[in-house]
């Protein structure tokens, strides 16, 4: 993993990269959202104060899933009717990246995937609809309208200033998980699975007052 260093075009502070393929990051001093161009970093926006959250994960947390170690390099925060959740951007030791969702301490791992079959449009996706992917029956369990609430750290694409977003979550009878993200057209598909906290073998977590 290389850490090409640059300086924030806004405040001049050094900006480090944990992941060489990062497209976007944030300056941890002035909270500018920075996008990498061929030659330098360009400020595209600014993150408002992040909402208080109680995820035990943080940028720099490390873990391993099925003997593949990973490090948390960034996140997107969403807010919906029932609170907020985090999509942590994790980079594996083979250079690939994926997502670790933490929604009220329920964890899902997922990876961007090519939809094996065409996906229903935002207006057509319904709870209870099913898709047959990789021999499994994925059932739409929820449609969630969310707001983009903020970003932090390194992301594999430009992601900022989004407003109203639609997500559809799908699950199988054997613990697989999928999300259809309607922030793009055509929609993006992420495939993965629900994981228990202890399956992630996490280190460098946040500490909580009264829980040491």
């Amino acid at each position, binding site marked *: 993993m290389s850490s090409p260093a640059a300086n924030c075009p806004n405040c001049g502070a050094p900006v480090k990269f944990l992941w060489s393929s990062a497209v976007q990051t944030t300056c941890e001093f002035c909270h500018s959202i920075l996008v990498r161009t061929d030659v330098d970093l360009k400020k595209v926006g600014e993150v408002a104060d992040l909402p*208080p959250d109680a995820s035990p994960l943080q940028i720099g947390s490390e873990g391993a899933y099925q003997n593949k170690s990973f490090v948390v390099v960034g996140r997107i925060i969403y807010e919906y009717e029932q*609170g907020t959740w985090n999509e942590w951007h994790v980079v594996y030791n083979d250079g690939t990246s994926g997502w670790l969702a933490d929604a009220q301490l329920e964890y899902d791992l997922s990876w961007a995937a090519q939809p094996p079959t065409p996906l229903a449009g935002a207006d057509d996706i319904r709870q209870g609809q099913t898709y047959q992917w990789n021999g499994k029956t994925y059932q739409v369990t929820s449609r969630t309208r969310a707001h983009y609430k903020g970003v932090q750290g390194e992301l594999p694409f430009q992601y900022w200033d989004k407003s109203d977003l639609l997500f559809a979550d799908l*699950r199988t009878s054997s613990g697989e998980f999928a999300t259809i993200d309607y922030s793009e057209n055509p929609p993006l598909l992420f495939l993965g699975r629900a994981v228990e*906290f202890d399956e992630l073998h996490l280190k460098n977590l946040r500490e*909580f007052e009264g*829980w040491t």
Partner: protein
Amino acid sequence: MPAVQAKSISCPNCGGPVALRGFAHTLSVVCPQCMTVLDASTPEVQILQTFQGKTRTQPTIPLGSRGKIGDTQFEVIGFQIRQVDSGEDTYQWDEYLLFNPYRGFRYLTEYNGHWNFVNVESALPEPSRSAGKLAMRFGGKTYLSFDSMTASTVYVLGEFPWRVSVGDSIACQDFVAPPSMLSSESTSGEITWSRAEYMPGSQIWQTFKLPGSPPPAYGIFANQPSPYGGSVGSAWRTWLWLNVALAGLAFLFMIISPGHVAFSDHYAYSQNVRSDAAFVTPTFQLDGRDSNVDLSIHTDLENNWAYFSFALINDQTGQTFDFAREVSYYHDSDGSEGSRNNSVIIPSVPSGQYYLRVEPEMAAGSPDVRYELELRRNVPNYGFFGLAALLLLIPPVLTTFRKGSFEAARWRESDYAPSSSSSGGDD
């Protein structure tokens, strides 16, 4: 990075302090002073609901209690009373919200002293059918449909990671595979599945170090493990082995105590001999203490019957034991009926010199019959073994019956009760 600080807010209704145990997960919290339900998700705390109009209930497990379930330490941070009002029947149960900042939320439910530890599941159960009922397959187990209901929240304390309010109602369905239960809750079309594991009250008392001892559980709960669950099979296995042992014992008896032959002889009966059919045998000795005597008759009857009247007479005292046996044997191409042999046991015959008086009798015109009489002293009484085998049946039959009535009592509380109470008149 410093530890995440526990938060405290002020109640906008009464001004009292409200400590938060669930950090930023807490969306709503009940002010412990004035019981107002507050929205804690924004810095400017809003009132969601002023109270509740009910006398205060003290949860059995106080808020803030911590205890280890499995390998995880949990803190009790929320409490609700939920109620089902079916029109005919109203009942309530308690629901505790448990929290661990890394491993998340779990629930404990309590109804009439029956406890369940509940985990929200992310995998989807698969609908199926079993024993004519709707069922769910989940984690390799089949859960039978038990009941469905609408549950409303009637009382809240503490904090919740969702916006709680008194009056919220949710459609629920329960499926049981004791000691587990699978439940669905659906709100606005979204279905949440959770799996409950039955826990005895004593485990709750131990986990949360509660004073005293748990009150006994009342009635039978939907997923309460049957105390006879595994014992029916094992009772029948025990029965089988005891029977094998009994048969072995009977065999052993037969070998070591076959009785000793006191008298035996061959005879023929012919209606052509124009003399009295009755005759007496030579005397023989019966030894030992008072004991039984077995007289067996072996004939060569063919599609005929013979009737034998006997008297066992003590040569010295004249004491007489009278008895009779019929032997009949018929057979054709379809099969046979009866037997060429018969026997009789006379109990408690004192020792002494005896002889037999024998009087055979047959239908007029019957062909000759040959027969053997064998009198044995002190034969094992196999009737005892029969009685023992019968007595051995009692425990497994009783266990089977008890399990049956336990299951019947469980299902009486379900939507599948054999007769609904609304039919009336049979109480």
